[in-house]
């Protein structure tokens, strides 16, 4: 990863020096050794801030929405999941492809930050759960590719061939309705509605979110189990078919709510009901829930 870091800095310097882009979005070291938060580099002399290490969790594609109406191009580093996020944003007509210089980097999986904090710098830190289950570690869309493409492709092929990991969802499906209700109520009772999950999510790209429409009465300001669950379920249903499994919602949640379990349940259902589908892998306008076809059977109508 050290080598990729040097290549990142080199390419960023070149793009900025030539004036091809105004800003490069990457990662830099944060307050603690296990944090590599987003970095925004706009001067060639600052490129040495950029790093690529085991903690570059942040999905940078969402930030591209901040540059939609600004002049000039933006370069961004994309791991596998970040590239799926970019595709979803394209699919949702949020971004123009030509405005962004995409620099793909292979991802060996990011490490669990909570465990890193617990085990210390010399500990044997496992990959984050979302990364253990990842099927697309390589960027699926890019203008440049850094690192060893052949080795990366081989690693990705093994992961892609594996069956999807749904054991946690299956465990939940075994619960009775009452047990499910109790489980999710207790999870969402502690939700503080900070909306970190929504704001970090690339599939949450509405111009105005339903939860910000305070005068419509869709959702009240009160924090209670009912409103919180309404928030959770509405968001889960809205990102269904567009969730690219970056797991950022769950990582960003300050209250340890297993948000990805809800998202994965919907991904599993979509796969069972509409055939195999991974969001953000292709940009072809054919979405399981967002695509209109007049030959669709409407048996329930």
């Amino acid at each position: 990863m050290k080598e990729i870091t040097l290549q990142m800095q080199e390419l960023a310097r070149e793009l900025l020096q030539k004036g091809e882009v105004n800003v490069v979005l990457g990662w830099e070291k944060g307050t603690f050794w296990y944090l590599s938060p987003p970095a925004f580099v706009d001067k060639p002399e600052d490129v040495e801030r950029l790093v690529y290490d085991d903690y570059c969790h942040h999905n940078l594609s969402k930030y591209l929405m901040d540059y939609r109406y600004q002049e000039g191009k933006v370069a961004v580093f994309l791991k596998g999941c970040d590239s799926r996020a970019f595709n979803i944003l394209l699919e949702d007509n949020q971004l123009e492809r030509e405005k962004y210089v995409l620099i793909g980097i292979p991802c060996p999986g990011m490490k669990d930050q909570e465990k890193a904090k617990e085990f210390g710098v010399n500990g044997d830190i496992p990959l984050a759960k979302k990364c253990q289950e990842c099927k697309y570690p390589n960027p699926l869309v890019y203008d440049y590719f850094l690192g060893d493409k052949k080795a990366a492709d081989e690693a990705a092929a093994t992961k892609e061939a594996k069956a999807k990991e749904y054991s946690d969802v299956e465990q939940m499906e075994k619960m009775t309705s009452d047990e499910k209700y109790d489980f999710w109520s207790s999870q969402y009772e502690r939700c503080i509605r900070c909306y970190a999950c929504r704001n970090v999510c690339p599939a949450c790209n509405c111009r105005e979110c339903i939860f910000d429409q305070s005068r419509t009465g869709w959702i009240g300001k009160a924090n209670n189990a009912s409103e919180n669950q309404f928030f959770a379920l509405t968001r889960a249903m809205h990102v269904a078919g567009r969730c690219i499994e970056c797991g950022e919602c769950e990582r960003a949640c300050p209250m340890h709510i297993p948000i990805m379990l809800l998202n994965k349940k919907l991904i599993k259902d979509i796969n069972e009901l509409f055939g195999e589908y991974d969001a953000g892998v292709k940009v072809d306008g054919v979405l399981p829930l967002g695509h209109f076809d007049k030959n669709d059977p409407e048996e329930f109508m």
Partner: protein
Amino acid sequence: MMKIIAKERLPEVLQLLAKDYNVLVPAKFEGVSRFTPYSADVELALEENVLMPPKDIFFPQTEKMYKFKAKDKSLEIEELPVEKEEQLIFGIRSCDLKSLECLDQVFLTKGYVDHFYKDKRDRTALIALSCLQPQEACFCGSMGVDPQNGVGADIQAYDLKDKIGFKAISAKGQEILEKISGLLAEEEVTIPTFGEFNLKADIEGVPEKLQGMFDHPLWADICRKCLNCGACTYVCPTCHCFDIDSEVRGEDGVKIRCWDTCMFGEYTQMAGGHNPRPTKKERVRNRFMHKLRYFPERYKMLLCTGCGRCVVKCPVNLDITAIIKKIKEAE
């Protein structure tokens, strides 16, 4: 000489106090620690400060203010029953005591008393607990807080590793200590030395310097990674903004007040559509200006206690100590 008890016998003290008070203790459930009503099966979390600050004990995230009935042109207002139960918080840390001092300024001074807050504050006794070690994101020392001696507690308890020592501070504290004195022994003790802070912030001159920095380019830079979520403000022990709303069903309604946050765009959205803080630059600037300049100007104290919760919980590591450093270094 100090009154002490072995740490493993602390539940006996809490049990005894629970006869007279609703005792709130630090406890952890599913990865989130907060002050929780004491019962025999609650597992105490005394190793580090709680994630959720005590502010919601005095200023709940959602609080019912009054009920009303609106029919034709008549309006009836019904006051809600007032809680009378005496409360006691065990294990509040120095940084969080400092946060109560900040909240007191807002809710009790300058000619306005918020009776919702005051009522809870008046019937809550505080037993502070000294810290043995700073956590990696703690920087209270830089904010003028002594992690081993809180200000404003009724009793200061000392973490003596295998024992807990108690020292009464107020008359109320003396009274409480007498209730539990049968369980306590008297001993000469040495308070363990506190470790070195991992995080520091040099706040000297920052409030004054910020007076001339409203239009500084620094804000456009530091805001870029902010997600504008409310995690930092909701885990903050001092952030105290709220919004008042009604829940109405037919003729009946309840007025509620709920935490709000300057990080949300909707927070400054005005009738007619204008928003004076339209982007994250203005919102991020407001958060740090409020903590480090406006509050000190109004109340002569910082609105940050160095508890480190926002540093731990910000999903993008927007670290207030790093911001303070940038302000110091800015030209």
